[in-house]
Structures are given as C-alpha cells and as structure tokens.
C-alpha cells in the first residue's frame, strides 16, 4: 500500500538524502553508517543483476557493523589512489507504506576526481530506498544502489 506523503515528510526525506551525499563527498565517511538503522542493509548492485534477480552485487553490508568495517578498512588497510566523489542526486519519487515507512527512488550521477586531477563520471543509476523513523529522525532500513553499468572503473572503495 502506498499513499501521497505530506510536504513535511518530503522535506525531511530530501534532507536525509542530501546529508548522505554531503557526508560521503566531504570525507566524513565515519558518519556514513549512522544513516542506517542497526540492522540496515546496504547493497551496491547493477541494473543487470537486479533485473535477473541475482542477489550478489558489488558491495553488501548486512547491518551497521559491516559498514563500520568498510570504513575501518578504507581508512587503515586498503591501498588505493586517493579520490573524491561528488554526488548529483535528482529529484525523488516518494511513497508511504502502511507500516509507516517510506519508499524513495532517486537518480544519481557520481563524478570522481582523482589524485591526478582527472574528473570522470564514475557511475550513474538510481537509489532504491526504504526509509523509517528511528525515534525522531529518518534512517535507511535498506539502501540499494543500482548502477546502470555493470562495469566498475578500477575499484570501488568509498561507498556510493
């Protein structure tokens, strides 16, 4: 069941999506898991895998602990050339479910600037989100990042 949502809820959901992009793009990656509920799910997959019902994507976090492990590995273990993203998130389709959660779908375009100065389109696609109230703030219960392309440029370290 879905219904039209009010302007206040829409504003808060859009705020959540905007803050998420800012945290990742501005190197505050430690805050990334906080956008999810404790057992929230984060999956980066491809349009093809989604269409064919294939569960394995490119990155999968089953709960905030796995997101924290991603952050720790990124900061302390993984060898990669430094780079930053810039998310351009399009307008969001939102519907409300009977259980008080929201479904949201937004297009994204992610640009990547590398250490050598090259600016490239790293990926584009859509976010499929399930958003719930956690006390008085909104969090992701599930965020599925669906890349249009199945091809990743070199590697994926920083979450999308």
């Amino acid at each position, binding site marked *: 069941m879905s219904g039209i949502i009010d302007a206040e809820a829409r504003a808060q959901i859009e705020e959540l999506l905007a803050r998420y992009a800012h945290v990742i793009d501005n190197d505050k990656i430690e805050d990334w898991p906080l956008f999810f509920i404790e057992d929230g799910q984060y999956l980066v997959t491809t349009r093809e895998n989604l269409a064919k019902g294939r569960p394995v994507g490119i990155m999968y976090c089953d*709960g905030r602990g796995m997101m*924290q492990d991603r952050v720790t590995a990124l900061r302390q*273990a993984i*060898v990669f050339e430094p780079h930053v993203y810039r998310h351009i998130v399009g307008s969001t389709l939102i519907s409300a479910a009977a259980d008080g959660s929201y479904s949201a779908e937004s297009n994204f375009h992610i640009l990547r600037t590398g250490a050598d100065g090259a600016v490239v389109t790293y990926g584009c696609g859509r976010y499929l989100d399930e958003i719930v109230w956690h006390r008085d703030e909104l969090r992701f219960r599930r965020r599925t990042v669906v890349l249009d392309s199945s091809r990743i440029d070199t590697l994926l370290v920083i979450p999308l």
Partner: protein
Amino acid sequence: MAGGRNSQRAWPDDGVTRVPYFVYEDAELYQEEQERIFRGPAWNYLGLEIEIPEPGDYITNHVGDTPVIVVRAEDGAIKAVVNRCAHKGSMICYQPSGHVAALTCPYHNWIYDFDGKLKSVAFRHGVRGQGGMPADFELAEHSLVPLKVATIRGMIFGSFAATVMPLDEFLGTRLVAHVERTLNRPYRILGRCSQTMRCNWKLYAENSRDTYHPSLLHSFATMFKLNRLSAEGGIEMDEAGLHHLVSARRHTDNSSADYDSAALRANEVGYALADPRLIEDWVEWDDGITNSIMTLFPCLNLQQSLNTVAVRQMVPRGPFESELFWTFLGFTEDDERKTRIRLRQSNLFGPAGFISLEDGAIGEFVQKAIRGEREQTAIIEMGGREVGPSPKTRTTETSVRGFWRTYRRFMNL
C-alpha cells in the same frame, strides 16, 4: 617503432627470472599475441552452459580482441562463431545475450545457421528480376569463422586452432580434477560485474599467479588469518606447466614468527571486525581446502575462497587496458542461509572486494611507472629460478615464471 623481434624486443638472457617492461607496452607485440595466443593453439573461456540453456539462446564474449557468439543449437550442442558478418563485417549479435532463430546480420539481412553457414542473402536474385548477386555467388563460400568448442563441468571453452589438443589434455589431469571437484554440483549465477584495469592484461595474469603478494598487499586478509602464507598450502601445476593451482587450508594456521613481526605493514593494521559474520563460513568440500585459485592459460581463473566460487575472465582491451569479468556462483541446492553467507562473503572479492580490490589498482601502478622504459626488467626470483610445483610454500613466484615460460613458447619470444 624502430627495431624488431631480434633487436629491441629481445628477451634478456636470464630466462623467466627477468621480464622486460616493453612486453606491457608494445603495440606490435599486442597484435602478435592476438594471433599466436588468442587465435592460436589455446583454449579460451567463452561462458557457462547455464547462460544458454535452450536452443537459440546465445551470449557474446571476446577471445582476445575477437568478438564471438556462443549459441545453443537445436540438438543441444554448443557452437561458437566470430561475431562478424562475412558480408561487410558488421556485428551480428549486438546484445550481450538473447534468443534467436538464426544468426541474422542487421545490416543487409544475411542469415546464418548456428554453425555459421550462410543460409540466405536478401535480394540474392534481385527485385523483379533486376539486381541481385552474380549468378556464380555461392552461399557455401561465405560462412562465419567457427571456433572449436569443448566444455568441462558447464564451462565453455573455444579455440580457433584446428590443431589445438583436446581440452582435457590442455588442462592436464590435475587441473581437470580440481575443476570437477570445485563445480561438483549444479550451480547458478549469483551475480556478475566487471572492472576496467588500466594495465596490460599480462600484469593481471601475473598478479593472479603471484602467490606471495596477497599477504603483503591485501592487509585485510592477513589481519583475519584468512589466507596467511603460513597456513598449510602449496602450488600444483599441470604436466605441461601451462596452468597452476594454488590452494590452502585455513584452519591449519599456527602463528609464525615472521608473520607477527611489525615489519609487515599488513600486520600493523590492528583492528578486529565489528561484524565477523562477514567471514562466517562452513567447510564445504571434503578435502578441507578453504582457498583455491586455478589460473588457466591464458586468461581464466576459477576460484573457491571459503564459500565464494567465482569465475574471473580477463579480456584484453588494447596494450594499456583490460577488463576483468567476475561471475559469482552458488549451488542450486543452497538454502537461504547458505546464499546469505555467500552474499556476505562476496564482500571479499570483486571490484570492491577486501582481498581483491587492490589488484585493480596495482597493475596501473606498474603501468604508469614503466612508461617508455625499454631497458629495465622485472625480477622474478622469489622461491628460486625454476618453474615447478611448490608443495610446501606459497612464498614463491613459480607460477609467474610458469606463465612467462608458457607465454614465450606461444610467442616464440
């Protein structure tokens, strides 16, 4: 470019312990590889039978630079032909996969059967008696270029060379046995993706055969004793030395002094997983092997790491770029819990894999650093100067030397 095979492009005297950097850059050499390796007497991976279950189902792939169609014929047999119309050279199948009644070129409607034989040509006899092909035009003279096809446990291989040895001889008894052991039940595809690497395909071929880099480059694995070199394991090879199998049993790891010394960067990273379910696993094969990687010449890896089963196919994209295709497999008998465990473990591999993602960058690090270098060579002496099995240790580059010995034989270089 000045010089030829016998001058600037001569191999150094030290055999397989030295690799001249020009082999990763030279455009002529790249063209020769297409001829001597990819269109030569080797078996190249084409895909999985489960991708084309029904007659008329097809997938496309590349053998080196050459585009190919792999299709299931009416009698269930698998056929492979070059994806290039005999008329004007257009691609015939322009989608990654699909279902067709025949192979029809979109350009001028030349129609081929699944063996690649030309069956009809539009307007062959003209329109109302005018135009048409010459009277002596023979359909039989214009077939698609076929590949020989062979399969093992649902993996499809193709070869352009009529003289290629049978697939099981090419792989050798040890590797055949391990493919059969790994894909020992009906399986399904859990996910697919690829990653571009800005490096020559041979840098990745070396990387995937280099059994001593993981503990040094991939800190994550070492931290959690996933695949430490001190675990029981070794390297086997086929009789002819074309392919390698590295395997280990995880639970035999008793700490060794070197490993715990602070000298290893990997060990300086002192953290524990916040959620150890990431590496939750079960011993799935009777032999107790928890990590095994088969590197099949020229461009295929079949890996089982814990409960992750993955096919990795490297496709060269010119001298300076390549694309690695990952296909993650599960077994059809899997229940939800097993699928969930495989899904969590998939974080270890692929373009975002904790113990594989650096491989996407390290080839580029080399490629950037050797730019234009025509004199210097890489050194490949860890574990000695020979090519051979290494039953007791993985701290060796024997598989890398084995790759170069095979490469030089194919290339006559």
